[in-house]
């Protein structure tokens, strides 16, 4: 598939990044099992693959965090063997991490400059640091100014993602202006449309200036817009590569999954029953401003909207995590104050968009996570019972793991999400509040979660689904309401909506 260049081609025509038969094992797990990749200078190269395909290990090898067992990495024709992350950055490689590698207690400036603080004899030079930071922030945030002195913990997720982008840009300066390789790992997962556009413009500028961009994403629409070529990984191996423009998205998805996915969004016959969850003129402390809706059994109600419109806050208010200041929420016939414990007792479960932060106890096992909210009929924590239940859900939802005792932190994103949903199912809730259930997970897991939601709705469960991915909402939901600036619009049948109309309503034109 890839031919190794003969000695005729000098270093001038050698690719910027070339990976040959890269291998890396952790214990008995083969994370990388023969990765081939070639990207030229100034190219935006998409790296595609399901979660667990080996992308993150590959990025760690490039960043100098782990050393490969076998195979070679060359950058501009020279072997790439950084002694560590600092060395890799100094040699012109920057990275934007999907899991947002930021220090919450530090201010924006300190995060941008972390590891590359300009210093003389160990003393940080304030002027140089400020120049470095202000320039990088200006390019990452555009006219949406951000205060470099504000703590990162006070920023929205979207702004944090841009702080990471700014850090990558600052790396270029610290490396003497020569940013050779920029790795973007799901850089847009939390960004609103305007921020995505600015990021894309930045990426194009950098590419035009000769930087090679390795763009890791699950959003194939984005890949089609920004990338020139692509490489697909599956099970740690390169299974395909080519021009994005000359390959159909279907063909890429097939390479990623290794099979035809068929109908992406299954839809069984659903019969809406009685209203089980409703809100009337609901207002929170900050967001939402006003939300009125009714959710019936056997129905999936989708909520669209831009990042920051208040969708997450709506779910949190319903679940009793955020205070309710106005209006009322009714679960079945029950009114009254909400707390997560009370909601769970009423059969309402919440799957957070922040899986690692609040959705799961990641250092505990699959079984322990499953029984977090519901130990079992006896009320005692019986490890054997928990493991049995876990084994059942592992089989039922196809959770890829070593067994009920494996720690959740070791699972891929898609499988973590399945564990989170399994926790709600084990609790046997009637209403599922799902916040971005497919964010940052691979195509196959997305399809499985869509199938699962459909099955649940067909069985009479009610699902309130928040998603930023419109095809998913259109495919999964029965009705869709759009949230805009804290206000929830009227719900309309999904078959009377399309992406353009939802987007128009979300941005308010």
């Amino acid at each position, binding site marked *: 598939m890839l031919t190794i260049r003969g000695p005729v081609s000098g270093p001038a025509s050698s690719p910027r990044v070339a990976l040959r038969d890269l291998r890396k094992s952790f214990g008995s797990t083969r994370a990388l099992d023969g990765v081939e990749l070639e990207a030229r200078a100034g190219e935006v190269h998409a790296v595609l693959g399901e979660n667990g395909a080996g992308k993150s290990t590959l990025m760690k090898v490039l*960043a100098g*965090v782990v050393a490969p067992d076998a195979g070679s990495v060359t950058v501009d024709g020279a072997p790439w063997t950084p002694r*560590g*992350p*600092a*060395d*890799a*950055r*100094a040699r012109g490689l920057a*990275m934007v*991490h999907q899991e947002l*590698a*930021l*220090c*919450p*207690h*530090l201010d924006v400036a*300190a995060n941008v400059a*972390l*590891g*590359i*603080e300009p*210093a003389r004899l*160990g*003393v*940080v030079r*304030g002027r140089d640091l400020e120049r470095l930071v202000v320039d990088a922030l200006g390019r990452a945030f555009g006219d949406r100014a951000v205060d470099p*002195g504000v703590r990162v913990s*006070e920023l929205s997720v979207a702004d944090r993602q841009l702080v990471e982008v700014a*850090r990558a840009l600052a790396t270029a300066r610290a490396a003497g202006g020569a940013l050779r390789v920029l790795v973007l790992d799901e850089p847009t997962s939390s960004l609103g449309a305007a921020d995505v556009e600015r990021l894309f413009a930045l990426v194009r500028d950098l590419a035009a200036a000769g930087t090679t961009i390795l763009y890791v994403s699950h959003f194939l629409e984005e890949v089609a817009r920004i990338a020139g070529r692509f490489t697909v990984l599956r099970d740690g191996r390169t299974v395909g590569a080519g021009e994005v423009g000359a390959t159909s998205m279907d063909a890429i998805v097939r390479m990623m999954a290794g099979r035809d996915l068929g109908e992406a969004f299954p839809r069984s016959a659903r019969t809406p029953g009685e209203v089980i969850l409703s809100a009337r003129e609901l207002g929170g402390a900050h967001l939402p401003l006003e939300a009125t809706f009714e959710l019936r059994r056997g129905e999936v109600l989708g909520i669209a909207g831009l990042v920051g419109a208040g969708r997450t806050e709506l779910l949190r208010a319903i679940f009793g995590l955020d205070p309710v200041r106005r209006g009322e929420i009714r679960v079945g016939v029950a009114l009254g104050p909400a707390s997560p414990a009370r909601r769970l007792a009423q059969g309402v479960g919440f799957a957070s968009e922040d899986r690692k932060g609040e959705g799961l106890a990641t250092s505990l096992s699959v079984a322990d996570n499953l029984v977090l909210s519901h130990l079992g009929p006896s009320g005692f924590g019986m490890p054997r019972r928990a493991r049995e239940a876990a084994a059942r859900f592992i089989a039922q939802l196809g959770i890829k793991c070593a067994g009920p005792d494996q720690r959740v932190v070791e699972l891929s994103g898609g499988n973590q999400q399945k564990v989170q949903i399994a926790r709600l199912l084990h609790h046997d809730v009637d209403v599922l509040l799902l916040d971005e259930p497919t964010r940052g997970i691979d195509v196959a897991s997305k399809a499985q979660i869509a199938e699962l939601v459909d099955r649940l709705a067909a069985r009479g469960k009610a699902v309130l689904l928040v998603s930023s991915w419109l095809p998913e909402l259109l495919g999964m939901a029965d009705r869709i309401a759009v949230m805009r600036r804290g206000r929830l619009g009227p719900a309309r049948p999904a078959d009377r909506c399309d992406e353009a109309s939802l987007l128009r309503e979300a941005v308010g034109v």
Partner: protein
Amino acid sequence: MKRLRPLLRQPWLGPLAALAVTYAIFAALAPDTFARASNAVTMARQTTVVAIAAVGMTLVIVSGGIDLSVGSAVAFTTVVIAAMLKAGFGPWVAVLAGVAAATGSGVACGALVARLRMAPFIVTLGAMSILRGAAKGLANEQKIDCDPRGLDALLAPGSWPLVPPGVWVAVLVGVIGALALRYTRFGRHLYAVGSNEATALVCGVDVPRVKIAVYALAGALAGLAGIMEFSTLTVGDPTDSVGLELEVIAAVVIGGASLSGGEGTVVGSLIGAMLMAVIRTGFTFVGVHNWVQEIATGGIIVVAVALDRLRHRSR
């Protein structure tokens, strides 16, 4: 007003206000004794040991660690100094040996925390017991009497302008510590490691080196505090400073540091140390029983942290 804003954001502002109010209350209750300048000097002398150790502890806590071995390290240092003096070495050699011993212990703790990824609580808990035992063994389970060879003048009143030289040393350590934490790469990396270690690692911070350095520094400062302790004791006492580490940690926490790392300032910790000294001395002058003091001190630790949490939540 705009220039004042960053000042108002300082986390040690609350503890400073508490210190001022407490001082004012005791000064009003005992104007003839507590409010005298000579008492302020006495309190400064009594705070010196805790203050110096608190600077080291602040660095450790900011990096997300803890050092329980401070009290034992101080006692061990006094014993080493006394033993050296008794063996006929000069005061400089004795002092350097004491600081070197405490620093060595810090390096060992740091290496275990950084390289073997052991929990700092466990490592320094072990060091606390080991150092205490070593001090007792070295001193043959009794105090070592010796000629202090001028070291007693460090904290003796009257020799230097305003306050004794030992207090000036503490002030200098505080200033250097505060500046280092704020303006050096090392200081910034301490906050980064304490806030999110994984991030610091991928950003190229040499996390193990930072950790070893911070425990070594804390050990060295515990040694320096041990010199000051020897200056007041004038003997090597292996049973001295039991529980000092808790007082030091309390000072740091009152000063606004978070035990989970990433937060804390040297200025805040020094204010915390002074606040505890004011309370202790103040109660004595007013004539309150010792047990009330202890309850009050404990209450203040809890209230200080509770206020800090409330302040965080309101933002």
